């Protein structure tokens, strides 16, 4: 018979091991940070140096790349928040498409000039059973920006459902806008506005700037 202390030690060890194995952040190979950074770097590879006229050609490729780590529909749905139920199924699909394109266009234009951004992961930690947070810095155009990615277990994979840059949440920012819009405006007006936005592509950064 094992001494009582040794049995306790074994029990404690087994408990710790079980906890480690069950912890989403500590399970071997389950840290979503490497996959996320690979996705972002892949998108940077596709985007860097693009002119405004070349953007459209690359969008499908970027979409495919981003879908590996970003939950588009969830981000859009969360951005709408309580207003999501005001949309019909067709309008929801259209909103996901339009808002997604609006954001990707902004993304590509932002990265179409300047040197390659340098992304560094500062921390990667579980914030619950089904959520994870990755804290990173982005060095771009001489400025360092703190970016936090919030990921969730979505369809069995870790995917980003919100991004906070210097404390500014993309989901939160759009939700504020949509809440303001729906105080007076309709779904149809919002979709028309999104289409108008997409129809007017802002000029990329000039060489001199």
């Amino acid at each position, binding site marked *: 018979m094992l001494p009582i202390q040794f049995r306790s030690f074994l029990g404690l060890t087994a408990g710790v091991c079980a906890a480690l194995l069950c912890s989403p952040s500590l399970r071997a190979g389950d840290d979503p940070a490497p996959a996320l950074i690979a996705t*972002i770097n892949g998108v940077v590879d596709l985007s860097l140096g693009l002119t405004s006229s070349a953007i459209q050609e690359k969008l*499908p490729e*970027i*979409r495919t790349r*981003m*879908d590996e780590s*970003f*939950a*588009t*529909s*969830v*981000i859009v*749905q*969360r951005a709408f928040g309580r207003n999501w139920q005001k949309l019909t199924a067709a309008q*929801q*699909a259209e909103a*996901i*498409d339009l808002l*997604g*394109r609006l*954001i990707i*266009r*902004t*993304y590509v*234009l932002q990265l179409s000039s300047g040197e390659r951004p340098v992304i560094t992961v500062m921390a990667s930690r579980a914030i619950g059973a*089904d*959520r994870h947070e990755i804290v990173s810095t*982005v060095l771009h155009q001489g400025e360092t*920006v*703190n*970016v936090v*990615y919030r990921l*969730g*277990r*979505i*369809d069995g994979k870790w995917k980003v*459902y*919100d*991004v*906070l*840059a*210097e*404390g*500014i*949440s993309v989901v*939160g*920012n*759009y939700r*504020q*806008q949509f809440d*303001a*819009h729906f105080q007076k405006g309709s779904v149809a007006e919002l979709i028309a*506005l*999104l289409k108008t936005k997409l129809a007017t*592509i*802002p*000029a990329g*950064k000039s060489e*001199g*700037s």
Partner: protein
Amino acid sequence: MNLHKYRRPLTTALFALVSQAWFAAPGLAQVPDSILNEDPSAVTAAPIPDRIEGINRVVFKFNNGFYRVAWRPLSQGYAAVVPRVARKGIGNFFHNLAYPTRLVGNLFEGHGGGALKETGRFLINTTVGVGGFLAVADKMPSLKVPESDLGQAFAVWGVGHGTYVVLPIIGPSSLRDGIGDGLSGVFLAPAQYLNNWEYRTGAVALEAVNQSPDAMHTYDTLHGAAVDPYVALRDAFSARRAQQVREQMAPYGRTLITPRRGANGPPRDNP
């Protein structure tokens, strides 16, 4: 434009957009309720109360016109004449000159360590950095310190924003931060101590124009991405200022804001 508080939040907001580029998704995914129900303001900050929204929107509209008609041509002309590297150096020079504001902000907050670091940064940038044109101290981790200003100091004292304010030409601010910036501009800006008013005006104008190309780019991108640019900017300003105050207080183990209570908790206060 309020170049310190306007350009930075928008630039960083764009990185948020940059970080989530995607296109259309094939359909809605199976998502845990904890994610769908997570309130974004629980992990950022509640918006600053906008008690004079009607007036603010009028000023916002006026500013838009001013930026497009007057500021953009000026910005484009300046960018065409002055290369980016020179603009960076001039920006570093003016940032270094704003040392008194950061110093007083730290002292008002009781952050002696921050005041010492700011002083060290100023001395190194002014000497090794050739009058401040080179931000040498940025490469020294031991001198890294969150930037302070009088608005943040007021926040540490417990003073609330009061109301969100859009200032003519300058842009987004709050009652508290506007007063802080005004006091800084009158008493702590070295340019105000120049004898000749032409020099004073010239210094302020040069600093503003020097930052205008980046500010205009950010402005254009925001208007291209936002459904309601007024609300988008207000939210970005609110969140960014809250983050700055958090950063300012974090190294000293002090906080005035609601601690993070889990992602589905109540909205965090805006300090």
